[in-house]
């Protein structure tokens, strides 16, 4: 059983398009996150949800909109994609930031 599953694994799209990435966890964790990993492998938090409520919204362009329909799901919708959005996006879950995170396998987004 996959603990944190993300789809799709790869996403190649043209500039200006809108795309979504889905994430689901079956660990019963209360908190879910979206992280962006750039080409230098730097992991930067984008959003955090706790029990469906938005807790953290870093300085992310408002073209990025997370949605959490329930505490097991956290999706990421991106409008008007730009070249600079190309990166690997990781979903993660945990019991809280004082506990280890479980990451999904990542979505490699390439904007052309």
């Amino acid at each position, binding site marked *: 059983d996959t603990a944190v599953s993300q789809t799709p694994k790869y996403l190649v799209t043209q500039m200006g398009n809108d795309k979504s990435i889905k994430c689901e966890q079956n660990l019963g964790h*209360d*908190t879910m*996150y979206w992280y962006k990993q750039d080409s*230098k*492998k*730097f*992991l*930067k*938090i984008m959003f*955090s949800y*706790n029990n469906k409520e938005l*807790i*953290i919204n870093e300085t992310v362009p408002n073209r990025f909109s997370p949605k959490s329909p329930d505490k097991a799901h956290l999706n990421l919708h991106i409008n008007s994609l730009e070249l600079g959005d190309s990166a690997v996006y*990781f979903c993660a879950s945990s*019991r*809280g*930031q*004082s*506990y*280890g*995170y*479980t*990451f*999904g*396998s*990542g979505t490699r987004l390439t904007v052309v």
Partner: protein
Amino acid sequence: GQQVMQIPQYQHVQEGEDFTTYCNSSTTLSNIQWYKQRPGGHPVFLIQLVKSGEVKKQKRLTFQFGEAKKNSSLHITATQTTDVGTYFCAGPTGSGNTGKLIFGQGTTLQVKP
């Protein structure tokens, strides 16, 4: 804001040599976590250290949390090709479930067989 710095950024070693990566935080941490990301993979949680001066071992890996709880290290004894990957330290900000983990830039380890 809070920063977590890691050195070195890259390390190439011959198989069998030892390896150490160092992590420094600009603020005192309640805990420090370590993750490993294999090439093409995702970060995997290795361990969490909580107490000042704590030392934990996992087979050939030794993790240490500094006395001031602002720095940490990961030491691998007699590296193997399976140790290849990027090692990240991470420290929390905030408290309870309202905070977030700040990750270091990572140390990428290459092991030559």
